[in-house]
């Protein structure tokens, strides 16, 4: 029998977060198309943005790939390829640490830019600061695991707990026991990660979903008709 607090934390909270994520995105897309942008401020300041934005975004891409590798792909897949935990851990540790440090540094530069540059500061809203600080907190909590836990405690195969738990959530058969057995820092990052999804629709982060892939196969000149149904 699962304790009520555990049920709240590991079953109800995740589904509430994901519901807010899905419904929030649809609501935002429908209700606020004018506000759906990447909120670029490059025109106001370019030097610090170049470093901060490039470092953060590229590292973030690798971090997403890392999370897919560690959480969505089951251990059995790696086993079938003959990848042992020690070799997986080397990739995960070094790849994750490098990407994580670059992303955190990028965020720090972006935050410093927002606070230091007169023009960027004057045009910043709560949303901008909140998004940056929130991302920084999540990234640091992730680094507590990748760097902190590994160096202080030792290698931990999160694929066997976090990975199993997240996939159980996706399949609507939440496995609470497996997540409660994970170390606290890993649990913390999981909870913050879920919060990230709940918060995302209400921040500028929605631009992630506008990454213009269809552009790759679109024709160059776009015509639109005002009289015919396009």
């Amino acid at each position, binding site marked *: 029998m699962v304790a009520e607090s555990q049920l709240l934390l590991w079953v109800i909270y995740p589904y509430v977060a994901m519901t807010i994520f899905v419904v929030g995105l649809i609501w935002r897309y429908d209700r606020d*198309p004018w506000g759906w942008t*990447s909120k670029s401020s490059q025109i106001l300041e370019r030097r610090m943005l170049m470093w901060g934005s490039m470092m953060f975004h590229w590292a973030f891409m690798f971090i997403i790939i890392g999370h897919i590798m560690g959480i969505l792909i089951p251990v059995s897949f790696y086993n079938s390829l003959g990848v042992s935990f020690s070799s997986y851990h080397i990739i995960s540790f070094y790849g994750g640490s490098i990407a994580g440090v670059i992303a955190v540094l990028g965020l720090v530069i972006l935050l410093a830019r927002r606070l230091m540059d007169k023009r960027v500061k004057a045009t910043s809203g709560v949303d901008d600061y909140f998004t940056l600080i929130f991302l920084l907190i999540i990234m640091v909590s992730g680094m507590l695991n990748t760097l902190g836990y590994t160096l202080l405690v030792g290698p931990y195969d999160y694929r066997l707990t976090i990975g199993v738990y997240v996939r159980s959530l996706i399949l609507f058969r939440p496995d609470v026991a497996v997540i409660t057995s994970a170390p606290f820092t890993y649990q913390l990052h999981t909870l913050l990660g879920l919060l990230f999804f709940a918060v995302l629709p209400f921040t500028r982060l929605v631009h992630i979903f*506008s990454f*213009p892939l269809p*552009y790759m196969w679109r024709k160059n000149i776009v015509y*639109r008709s005002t009289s015919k149904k396009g």
Partner: protein
Amino acid sequence: MNIKAQICMVMNLDKCIGCHTCSVTCKDTWTNRPGAEYMWFNDVETKPGQGYPRGWEDQIKNKGGWELKNGKLKLKQGGKLMRMLKIFFNPVLPTIDDYYEPWTYNYEQLTSAPQGTHQPVAKPISSITGIGSKLNWGPNWEDDLAGSNVSAPLDVNLMGLEENLRLEYEDTFMFYLPRICEHCLNPSCVASCPSGAIYKREEDGIVLVDQEACRGWRFCISGCPYKKVYFNWKTHKAEKCTFCYPRIEAGLPTICSETCVGRIRYIGLILYDADRVKQAASVKGDRELLSSQLSIFLNPLDEGIRKEAIRNGIPEEWIEYARRSPIYKLIVEWKLALPLHPEYRTLPMVWYIPPISPIADKVIQMTGSEADIFPSIDKLRIPIKYLANLLTAGDEQPVRAVLKKLAAIRIYMRAISVGVQPEWDLIKGSGMTEQEIKEAFRLLSIAKYEERFVIPNSHKELARDLYTDQGMVGLPFYEREEYAKYLAFKGKASKGHYPGSSADSDAMSGKI
């Protein structure tokens, strides 16, 4: 053949007095709001000079427009994949300093300053930061060559000119260049937009930014070689000249044209073959672009073209307007107008008649005889090479031909009005017939309102979804309440309540 109609403009630089009325009325109409203060959909530059934004013509630095790579037309700022890799930081995007940091003045200081020995001064304050700002550039910073000894040497159009011809005080030359969006046939901003938010209107070729679809990726701004797409720092979306489409749709000229005191602007239709746009923009030499662009314009008087145009869905009324178009005469028939920087390969659709006045006067003074004008056209005050660098990718021949025609018009009309025999050899040498000269004189000098502006009504009242396509308008909402009203209206409209409801249209036109 795929015939499309394009609404386009010709500006007669011969008559521009640089009064900035076009800029001011345009700003009052479109960009007089937060985030858009620095945008001038229309600006008037003094040439030679770097212009606004500073150095916009330097495509080595800006990488705007297209280039021919291994015989293929490519965006200068890189292919799609290369640009996707630069989406987090666009290396060729101008900053606000290249335009200017918008400013207002601390007017309160004038009345609230404590008594002192000096007059109080209203200091400039930045409209972005609200604190004092240093002014070091602006949309008309080089007005009438002000400070051009410092800034003008960097004008790329001076390349290829003899050193001593450039900016020596005695040889100084200048003219005005009013600029709006070119509403190109092959727009590089449209091709640059990853979101597909910028589009060319099928009906009249006006290029607009869909504010609901724009995601602020900024490539249109660097992609446009004319730097006529702007980034609103408040809404974080791109905005540009709309060719005053609400007026155009009603058959009225743009606000810049309507208020032009020199009557230098002409608006009308051109029919062109959209299937041949890419081919025309891909010709090998930069100097072939003028003739290749001319080759895709279609003669509206041709009965075959008329039938084909109707088959392509162009209303008969529009073809009638195309037949009376002043643009077709100026660009195709008389070949008096030339495109701005055709070498950008965007096939721009705002063309210019090069200025002659300061030239001819000097020549006549020099030689005392009109007959000497043609041989002397190369010794004019505004170097032909400069005009050629601006209008014909450096090819002097078309510029010389236009100047000869403009001179011939003057010589003929002067002879008529003072009652002497026109010098027929000169007039024949210009390549214009007597009839054409009379017509051109009427269009250029008398410049009647209804002859300058031949704009068909778009009959928007017959359009299927006038209100549901509201997002395509190209300008953002600022106030939350207005936006809410718009959304409520859109919701109603999509449920089919809108057609013919006068109450609804009042709400739309009056409030939102």
